[in-house]
Each structure stands twice: as structure tokens, then as C-alpha cells.
């Protein structure tokens, strides 16, 4: 996003106005990515018009469960977050870091010079804005920056959506990132799918956003619309499906040797689903590959997961041999050690890891169980 603006007028646009926004972003040479319906889930994908959005589709999420149904009121954002996250557009699942060619004496490397994509993310929720901010700290703002992430992030516009219908596994209120977006967006939308008129409130959060908004057919938001949006957000706050214990970081620090890890290990499949759907999990591995002649080599970076055995391998053996220590690594990193490392939680309360766990392991319930077991009720 570009430079934030201090105050912004709230305007309303209708469905056509949103379509005009998508086309305006396209006219800027941007690839617009937003929620689309695919394979029975709302995922992220290219959006070229408002017709690509999942109108009238709502999701139902629970531990280890996800299903969709049509609702009919035509709302475009009446769903929670799906299995995809925005990190894949900034930190791709597979990326060639560089290629190398054998020369007479040694080798020459060529960095990956793919052009930075100009992207616009449509429908970014509060939890996912918090996730982007967390990833910024890991991949951009430390002593070293990942060149791909930093460049993609600088080029991406963020069109946020205030969440008015949290899913059954959501707990962003506990983690402080939602449902209303606070900062880090270019434009923020609040959808009001009324009986007679379907409108969206729009607020600019940056100069780029304000310029975009100025080019759209919009009206000033009236008091009734503002009040309706407030009421919807207040309702969303009260309809979180889950909550996280506030002292979770200390509970986990104190619970490293808890007997509960063994209990989780009996259920956990170490399948890595939770890390793949997590919007902040950033672990990666590198693979060095050569062509058949042995003259060309390249280094590929791939998403990795702390749930695999090889993740912790050093000569002589694997550090985390059991599912207990791997689950403990994941949850304590996410909820406790992330604070030590990056000054923020690694969990945003998006609930994806709960929904997409094949056996329904619930991060909020496991945190409570550790607390209760260790007698900190």
C-alpha cells in the first residue's frame, strides 16, 4: 500500500461501483486476486469482474469441517476466510532463488530476475491484514530482507473487507486483529447487502486508495448506512466461534514439559495442513537441483513445515522425533516464541488451522487444555 491518509470520508458504492474498482485496478496493469469459488471452497484467484466473486455463497466452518451453501441475498463477502492465504502471492510456495552454470573454473550464479508482479488483493480480512504485518516483520523488516517478498509487497494494493460474518472457528477478537480493519489497507469495504439496495461502504487508507476511490461512481455515506455497518461489526464481535485464553504465551512457556503434548500427539497426524493454511507460517526449505548434464544447477525454495521429521535433521539424527515435540514447536512458536522473535503474536485468530485439520485439533482448545492440566485455571 502507499502512504496512509490521515482522515478519510466514508463513501458508498454499489455492485457496479465495485466492478468499476476491479476494472480500474486492472487498467493499472494489476492482477486482481480475490475470493472465488473453486472445488467446493472459497479460495483466492484472479478476479476480472464483480461476477467472479462468490455472490450469495456462505460458508460453515467447524473443527475439521467446511461446507458451503447458497443464501440468495447476493452478498459478495458473506463468508469467512478459506484455505488460501495471501502469503502465496508474496512468498510463493515454490520459487527458484537463483540458477548457476558450471564454467571452466567453478560456476556463475544468476539471481532470479522475474519481474515483480503488480497485484491487488481484494477481500483481505482483518486477520489477514494482521498476518501480512506479521510477515513483514519476518521477511522484510529484520536485518535481512527477502528481495522477492519486499518487492511484491511494495507493489501490492490491499483492498480490505470488514468481516461481518465470522466463521465458526474464528477468534480474531481474542488476537486483536479484527473483525474491523484498523490499518495497512489502501481501501476498506464494508458490505451492506440490504433488501432493496446492495451497497458497500468504502474508506481510503492510503493516497493510492483515495485516488482510486475518487475515480469511482460513489456517494457520501449516509448516517443510516454508517450505523448499519457499525451494528454489523458489533454483531460480528459477538459471534466469534472461538476464543483464545489471554495468557496463552505464558501458559505455553510454562507448559513445555506438560503431559498434554503426548495427548495431542495421539490425535495429530503430522500432516502439516495447519502450517500450509496458516497465513503467517513462513518456514521454507531449499533444494539444489541439477539438469541431466550436470552443467546447470538451481536452488529452489519451497514451503516447509515443522511437522515433518526432516525439518529438524542434523547429522546424527532428528531433533524432534515425536509428534508431541513437533506440535509443541508449532503452537509455542505461533503463540509464545513469536513474541520473543518479532514482537507480535504469530497467530491472528483466523481459525484456518482448526477448520482444515483433518482430525479437528483446535489450537484454542489445546491452549486451554495445557492451562487446565498445569493447574492454572
Amino acid at each position: 500500500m502507499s502512504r496512509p491518509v490521515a482522515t478519510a470520508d466514508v463513501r458508498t458504492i454499489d455492485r457496479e461501483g465495485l466492478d468499476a474498482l476491479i476494472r480500474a485496478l486492472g487498467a493499472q496493469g494489476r492482477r486482481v486476486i480475490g475470493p472465488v469459488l473453486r472445488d467446493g471452497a472459497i479460495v483466492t484467484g484472479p478476479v476480472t469482474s464483480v461476477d467472479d466473486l462468490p455472490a450469495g455463497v456462505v460458508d460453515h466452518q467447524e473443527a475439521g469441517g467446511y461446507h458451503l451453501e447458497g443464501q440468495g441475498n447476493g452478498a459478495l463477502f458473506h463468508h469467512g476466510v478459506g484455505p488460501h492465504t495471501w502469503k502465496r502471492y508474496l512468498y510463493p510456495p515454490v520459487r527458484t532463488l537463483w540458477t548457476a552454470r558450471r564454467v571452466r573454473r567453478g560456476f556463475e550464479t544468476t539471481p532470479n530476475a522475474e519481474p515483480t508482479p503488480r497485484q491487488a488483493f481484494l477481500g483481505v480480512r482483518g486477520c489477514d491484514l494482521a498476518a501480512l504485518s506479521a510477515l513483514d516483520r519476518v521477511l522484510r523488516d529484520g536485518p535481512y530482507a527477502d528481495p522477492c517478498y519486499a518487492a511484491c509487497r511494495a507493489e501490492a494494493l490491499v483492498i480490505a473487507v470488514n468481516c461481518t460474518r465470522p466463521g465458526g472457528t474464528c477468534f480474531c477478537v481474542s488476537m486483536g486483529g479484527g473483525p474491523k480493519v484498523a490499518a495497512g489497507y489502501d481501501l476498506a469495504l464494508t458490505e451492506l447487502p440490504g433488501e432493496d439496495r446492495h451497497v458497500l461502504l468504502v474508506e481510503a487508507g492510503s493516497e493510492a486508495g483515495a485516488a482510486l476511490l475518487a475515480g469511482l461512481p460513489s456517494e457520501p455515506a449516509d448516517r443510516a448506512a454508517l450505523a448499519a455497518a457499525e451494528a454489523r461489526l458489533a454483531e460480528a464481535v459477538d459471534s466469534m466461534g472461538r476464543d483464545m485464553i489471554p495468557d496463552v504465551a505464558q501458559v505455553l512457556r510454562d507448559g513445555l514439559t506438560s503431559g498434554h503434548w503426548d495427548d495431542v500427539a495421539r490425535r495429530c497426524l503430522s500432516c502439516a495442513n495447519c502450517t500450509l493454511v496458516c497465513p503467517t507460517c513462513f518456514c521454507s526449505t531449499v533444494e539444489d537441483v541439477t539438469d541431466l548434464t550436470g552443467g546447470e544447477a538451481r536452488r529452489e525454495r519451497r514451503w516447509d513445515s515443522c511437522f515433518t521429521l526432516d525439518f529438524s535433521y542434523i547429522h546424527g539424527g532428528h531433533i524432534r522425533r515425536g509428534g508431541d515435540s513437533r506440535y509443541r514447536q508449532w503452537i509455542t512458536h505461533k503463540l509464545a516464541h513469536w513474541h520473543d522473535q518479532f514482537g507480535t503474536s504469530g497467530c491472528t485468530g483466523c481459525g484456518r488451522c482448526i477448520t482444515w485439520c483433518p482430525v479437528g485439533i483446535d489450537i484454542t482448545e489445546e491452549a486451554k487444555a495445557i492451562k487446565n492440566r498445569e493447574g492454572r485455571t
Partner: protein
Amino acid sequence: MSVTAAADPMLPEPFGILRKRRELSDTFTLELSPLHGGGTFAFRPGQFNMLYVFGVGEIPISISGDPEDDGPLVHTIRAVGTVSGALRDMEAGDVIGVRGPFGSAWPVEEAEGRDVVLVTGGVGLAPMRPVIHHLLAHRQRYGKLLILYGARTPEDVLFRKQLEQWRSRFDMFVDVTVDRATGKWRGRVGVVTKLIARAGFDPHDAAAFVCGPEVMMRFSVQALNERGVADERIHLSMERNMKCAVGFCGHCQFGGQFVCKDGPVFRFDAIRDIFSVWEV
């Protein structure tokens, strides 16, 4: 002049192998020089580099040379895996990739005015050698200087000639033990922690640097504590899987620390709470 870090921290620089020296049956030393010029490779004792073999892979290896010598970059490596095995098969004139230096260093300034006890095991002597060079180069700044070294067998004693030279000096104390005596060994037999109990140093004002297998470090810390060395004066060098060395890949996490950028050298009290927990 130092080698300028590439803008992309993941891009290795080609270095030519000037010399290769066999140290032990499975351990060897490489002397490296940047192919495309650049002067001395500036580093602090305890830091490491990522060494890349074309098309094979990359591993973290501590620097084992003298930090104040403006000669080649020196690495001592034990062949235990695919990449270290490929490095062992290379010869002078071959080229490898180098990224670095990375990580924290032994706190040599903080230790000034104190006795310094170096407790090392096996190939752990290699990351310790730069600090030994530094301490000897500034010998007058330190109190007593002790190297307590343990190897599995006499055949596994690394830098043996150098240890003998150091041992012959009057201004430092070198004690070596082996787990299992073979051949003509007439020296000490037993674990390195036993050397701590009988070494002559002032435990209430000594700095201890420990590097070796994790289990050896655990018992060394215990023995140092028993002598009265406080946790905040004990530093140790940790080892974990590493893919990037710059804090992106997540592999080297050790509790709230990244071994690559917060370590590998840690003050013991910073990791005390997790050091004895299983499988962290």
C-alpha cells in the same frame, strides 16, 4: 577490506580452494580465497558460513581460522553427510560457494580481565580455534587461559600439533582427555567434564566458552556450575538444521531463538529454560 555482502543474502559467492589438509580420517581443512577478488574475509570468532557445493547443496560450517590473519578463509569440516562428503572429495583448484559470515560471536571483549576456560569436544575445537587465536594475540588482556579438550580416541584429537604447541607455552594451560585410549596414549581417559573439576581457574571471575556435542555441553555446564561459574559467564555454541542462515527458513529455531542469527553463540542464561527440555 571485507568481502561485500551481496544484496541477495541467498546468493553464494564463488571461492577457490587454495589448499586442502587432511586433519583426521573424516575431518579436513579447506583454505579458500574469493574468485573475484576482494581482500580479507572479515569475521568474528564463533561465526559461520554457508558452504555450497555446485548442484549438491549447502551446509553451515564454522570458521576455524585466525580472525586477525589476512590470509585465506579457513574451514575445518567433518564429513558426515552428503554436502560435507562432497566437500571432502574436492581438491585444490576446485570452486565452492560461500555465504556469510553469519551469527553471533564469542564475547571476547566481555571476557577481558577474566580467566577464560574453553571447554570443547570433538570437532567442536574447530569453531573454538579463532577465539584461541584472538586470546593469544591479546594475551595480556586476560587472566589464566585454559583449553579443556575431549575426543573419542587419540586418533580423533583435532589440531594435535597445534594443541601440543599451545600446551608447551607457559602462559596457557591445555588439558586433553579421550573417551577410549588406544595405541600409545598415556594421557587422560574419561569425559571432558572431569577436566573442569580439577582445572585451576578462578570460578567466581572466569568466562567459560563451551562447544561440542549437546550432551557434552549439558554436562559441562553442570560441572562449571558446580565449580561456581555463574550462568551469565558461560557461553555455548548451539547447532540446529539451517537452510538460509538469515532467519527466514525457520529450521534452526531453538525456543524463542534463531540459532542462525541470535546464535550460534548464546549466553547460557538466555537458553537455560529450554536447554534441558526434550526435543526443543
